[in-house]
């Protein structure tokens, strides 16, 4: 998976499909939303990609704790970083979308607050890791914390915003369920979610490979190796 090519080509095809069909395809006409409904393929897809990368991250953290293999810790860390990137993009794009549909960039909506808390918890994962100098301890405590951070995603993003009044779809004050429209689903499920997620996986594998190279370099620096003549 790390160095294979086929899924990268698939990623490019899916993203091109998402962008072209996302702008030109027909969408349901809804008041207030108007054409911004197309943000489903971009803003909502960011959160889906974040969720998937965080799931992968926590799986590797559990794997690390079970086997104590150092590579799994690198995988978990890099996937969490990509997840945070997607989360920040989701928060910013959501804020832009809210400006022209809810009225302001930030309205202290439970969904906005919950997503921010979830991201802060994940940012603390990076801070916590970097505050521990002992490498074994860093990996173990990091893995345990990552599981906690993942568990906190559910109340902060999925449960609480749905139990209180929220402007965001899914909240008590908003039973709007537009994503069920088949025209939207045709781009969202086969195109946007796997496309953006695969791009995230691609970037993550690059980061993992750089990390592995850097560690190998530390073990046996290039300078001390016998020079090969090419």
């Amino acid at each position, binding site marked *: 998976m790390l*160095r*294979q*090519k*086929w899924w*990268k*080509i*698939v990623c*490019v*095809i899916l*993203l*091109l*499909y998402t*962008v*072209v069909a996302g*702008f*030109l*395809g*027909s969408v*349901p*006409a*809804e*008041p207030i939303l*108007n*054409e911004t409904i197309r943000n489903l393929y971009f803003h909502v897809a960011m959160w889906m990609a974040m969720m998937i990368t965080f799931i992968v991250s926590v799986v590797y953290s559990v794997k690390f704790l079970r086997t104590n293999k150092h590579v799994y810790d690198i995988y978990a860390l890099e996937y969490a970083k990509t997840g945070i990137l997607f989360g920040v993009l989701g928060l910013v794009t959501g804020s832009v979308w809210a400006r022209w549909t809810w009225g302001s960039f930030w309205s202290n909506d439970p969904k906005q607050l919950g997503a921010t808390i979830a991201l802060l918890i994940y940012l603390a994962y990076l801070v916590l890791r970097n505050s521990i100098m002992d490498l074994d301890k860093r990996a173990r405590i990091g893995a345990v914390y990552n599981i906690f951070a993942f568990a906190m995603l559910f109340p902060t993003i999925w449960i609480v915003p749905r139990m209180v009044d929220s402007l965001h779809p899914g909240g008590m004050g908003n039973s709007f369920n537009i994503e069920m429209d*088949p*025209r939207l689903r*045709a781009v969202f499920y*086969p*195109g946007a979610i796997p496309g953006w997620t695969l*791009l995230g996986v*691609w*970037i993550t594998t*690059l980061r993992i*490979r*750089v990390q592995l*190279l850097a560690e*190998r*370099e530390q073990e046996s620096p*290039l300078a001390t190796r016998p020079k090969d003549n090419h």
Partner: protein
Amino acid sequence: MYKRIRTLILLLICQALSMPLWAQADTTGKPVEMADKFRADGKIYVVVAVVVVILLGLILYVARLDKKISRFEKELK
């Protein structure tokens, strides 16, 4: 590798084939303002072209980075 891509493209074509079916679903209630004129003028294609160029540029960047890392990996082997 190409077998898998072929299967995926086939799946997407199947998706596209079923699209005319949804075109028949009409919107009930009063008409909602959409950017119909914008599309009729053909200008939305300009936006699509710009976004596609940006996307391809970013992907090219990542692909080149990928190649570079692969080269380092080979050198370190």
